[in-house]
C-alpha cells in the first residue's frame, strides 16, 4: 500500500514538474511570440494581401484588383529599370567582393606580422554608417574639388563626375558597396582558411603541386567550398538591401540609372504612398530573397556537403 502511494506521488510530482515547465515555457516565449506576430509574421501576410489591392495610404477604403499591380509592374519602365539595375548591381558586387575578400584573406593568412592591423583596416568600412561614408565618398568623388578630381587631372581628365553620369553612377555605387562588403567577406574567409588541415598542403606538394595556383586549385578552393557558398548568399542578400547610398547620393538618378528595388519600394510606399503597388514590389523583393536563400540550402545539401 505504501509503495503504491509513493509511486503515485512520484508520478504526480513529475507531472507537476512537466506542467510547470510547460507553463514556464509558454510564459517565456509569449512576449517574443506576440512581437514576432505583430512585427514580422502578420505584416508579411498583410503585404501579400495588400499587393492584390489598390490601396493608397490614407484611403478609407480599397478594392481587390487581383494581379493588376503585378502586371503594371511589368509595364512600369521605372520598375523594370530598377529590377535590371538590381540584377546588374548584384552581379557586379558579388564576384568583386568575394575575390577581393578572398585575396586579402589569403595574403593576411600568409604573413605573420601586422595581420591584425591589416584585418582591422579592411574591416573598418563594415562598421561605418553607409550614410556618413556615402557623403564622404560623394565629397571624394566631387568633379572639381574631390580627391578623385585631383587624381584624374594627373591624366588630364577634368570635371569627371562619376555619380552624376548615368553610365557610371551605378557602377560607382557598386564599387562603394564592394568597399563596404569586402572586409566582412575577408573575415569569413580567414576563418574558413583556418579550417583547412595543413597536411593537405603537404600531400599536395608531394603530389606535384608546386606553384601557388596549383595548390590553390587542388586544396584551397575546394576546401573553401561551403564557406564560399554562404559568403555568396550573404553578400547577395545584403547587396539586395543597399538603400542608404541611393537615397543619400543619387535618389535613383540620374535618369533612374541608380534606381534599385529597395529604393523603388521606398518611393512607391513612402513618397507616393501607393501601398498596394509598393506591396507588390515588396512581394517581388521577398520572392527574390527567398529564392537566393533556398537555392543555397538546396545546393549546400547536395553538392558541397562532404564532411
Amino acid at each position, binding site marked *: 500500500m505504501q509503495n503504491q502511494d509513493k509511486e503515485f506521488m512520484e508520478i504526480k510530482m513529475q507531472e507537476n514538474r512537466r506542467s510547470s515547465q510547460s507553463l514556464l515555457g509558454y510564459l517565456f516565449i509569449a512576449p517574443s511570440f506576440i512581437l514576432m506576430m505583430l512585427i514580422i509574421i502578420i505584416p508579411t501576410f498583410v503585404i501579400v494581401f495588400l499587393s492584390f489591392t489598390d490601396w493608397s495610404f490614407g484611403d478609407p477604403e480599397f478594392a481587390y484588383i487581383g494581379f493588376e499591380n503585378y502586371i503594371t509592374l511589368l509595364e512600369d519602365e521605372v520598375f523594370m529599370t530598377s529590377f535590371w539595375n538590381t540584377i546588374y548591381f548584384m552581379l557586379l558586387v558579388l564576384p568583386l567582393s568575394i575575390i577581393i575578400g578572398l585575396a586579402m584573406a589569403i595574403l593576411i593568412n600568409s604573413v605573420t606580422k601586422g595581420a591584425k592591423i591589416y584585418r582591422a583596416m579592411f574591416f573598418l568600412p563594415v562598421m561605418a554608417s553607409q550614410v556618413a561614408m556615402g557623403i564622404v565618398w560623394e565629397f571624394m568623388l566631387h568633379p572639381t574639388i574631390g580627391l578623385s578630381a585631383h587624381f584624374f587631372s594627373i591624366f588630364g581628365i577634368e570635371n569627371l563626375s562619376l555619380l552624376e553620369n548615368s553610365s557610371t553612377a551605378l557602377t560607382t555605387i557598386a564599387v562603394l558597396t564592394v568597399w563596404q562588403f569586402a572586409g566582412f567577406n575577408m573575415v569569413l574567409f580567414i576563418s574558413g582558411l583556418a579550417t583547412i588541415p595543413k597536411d593537405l598542403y*603537404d*600531400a599536395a606538394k*608531394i603530389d606535384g603541386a608546386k606553384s601557388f595556383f596549383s595548390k590553390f586549385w587542388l586544396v584551397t578552393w575546394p576546401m573553401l567550398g561551403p564557406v564560399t557558398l554562404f559568403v555568396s548568399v550573404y553578400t547577395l542578400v545584403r547587396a539586395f538591401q543597399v538603400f542608404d547610398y541611393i537615397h543619400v547620393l543619387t535618389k535613383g538618378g540620374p535618369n533612374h540609372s541608380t534606381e534599385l528595388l529597395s529604393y523603388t519600394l521606398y518611393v512607391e510606399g513612402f513618397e507616393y504612398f501607393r501601398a498596394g503597388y509598393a506591396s507588390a514590389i515588396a512581394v517581388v523583393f521577398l520572392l527574390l530573397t527567398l529564392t537566393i536563400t533556398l537555392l543555397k540550402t538546396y545546393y549546400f545539401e547536395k553538392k558541397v556537403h562532404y564532411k
Partner: protein
Amino acid sequence: MSALSIKNCTKSYGDVQILKDINLNVKKGEFLTLLGPSGCGKSTLLKIIAGLDTQTSGEVLIKGRDVTNVDPTNRNISMVFQSYALYPHMSVYENIATPLKTRKLNVMQKMPFVGKFINNAKETLNDIDKDVKEVAEKLNIIHLLDRKPSELSGGQKQRVAIGRAMVRNPHLFLMDEPLSNLDASLRVQMRTEIAALHRELDETFVYVTHDQEEAMTMSDKVAVMMDGVILQFDTPHNIYTNPNHIKVAQFIGSPKINILYAKSFEDGKIYLNGKDIEYKLKDSEFTELSLGVRPEAFKLVEEKTNKSIKAVIKHIENLGSHYLLYVKIGLEEDICIVKVNDINEHKIDDIINLEIKTKKMLIFDAKSGQRIYGDKNAGK
C-alpha cells in the same frame, strides 16, 4: 650508393634545437624505422627528407644526389600521413590519380571539361587510368574507387593513402605514423600488409613511429631517436639484445625492462643489495651501476642459492601462456616484473627467490646511462 644518406644534419627553430647532428645511411630496399617518443625529432627528420622542411645545416642525399634545394615534387619520394591527408572533395580514384595527373598533364589539359581534348590528353589519361586501377587491384580497393574519403573506414582510407603513394613508383616511401589512428586489431593487420608491400615492391621505406612493437616487427633497421639524436642504429634484434644506452633498453621491449641498482668495487664484482651475484665487470672503473634485467631474464628458483635474491610478490597477472609477477626486490623502490611460465602455487605476499640470468643481463653506468660490458668469462 645508398638510397638515402643524411650527413651532419641539424635543425633549429630559433633557440630550440630539434635535431642535433643526425647521420644516417639507408641501403636500397631497406625498411628503416625512426623510433622514438613524441618530441624526439623523428617527424621533423622525415619532413626534412621529404623536402617539406629544410635543415639548418647538413646534407640530405637521395640516391647520391644532394636534394637540399630540390622541391618535394622532384625528389622522387612519396609520403603517407598520419591523418591520411586524402582530398575530401575527390573520389578515391581521383585521389590516387592526382600525383600522376599533376605531373603528366599541363595546365591546359587540367581544365575541367575541355582539358581532355587538348594535346592527346586522352592518351595520358588512359595510361593514368591503367596505373590507378592496377594499384587499386593490388590493395583490394578497386570496389571503392567511386567513393569519397568520408565514406570510407579508417583501414580503407589507409589503403587509399598507400595507393596514392605507390602509384608513382617512387624510390623512397616515407610514412609518418600511418597506423596511429587505427584501432589495435586493425593496426596488427595493417602492419603485416605494409611489411608484405615492402617485400613486394622492393623499394626503400622510411617509417616513423613511437610504437616499438611496430618498429620491431616491420623493420630491417631501426634508428632509436631521443631529444634530437640517434641513440642507436641497428637491426631490431640487436637493439633489443644489445642496447647501447639505458634509454634505448627502456624504450624497447614490453613489458618494460627492470632496472636494479647495483654497486661494483675494485675487484669488478657486482653486488646487488649487498649480495654478490657472481658476475664481473671488464672495467672496474664504474662503481654505480644500473642493471637492466628483462622480465624473461629472471629465473624463479625454489630454494635459496648463493646468487639468488629475495623478492615479495605484490601482484600476479595470468596471461594464459605465461604469468607476470609484480615483485618488490629487497629495498628497491620500483616494482619489478618477472615473467614465468609456472607460478607453482605462489600467491600474493609470498616471498620468492629469483636468480638473474646474467648472460642476458644488461649493465649500464648509473651516471651516464652508457652500456658497460662484463668480463667475457664472468657469470655461469
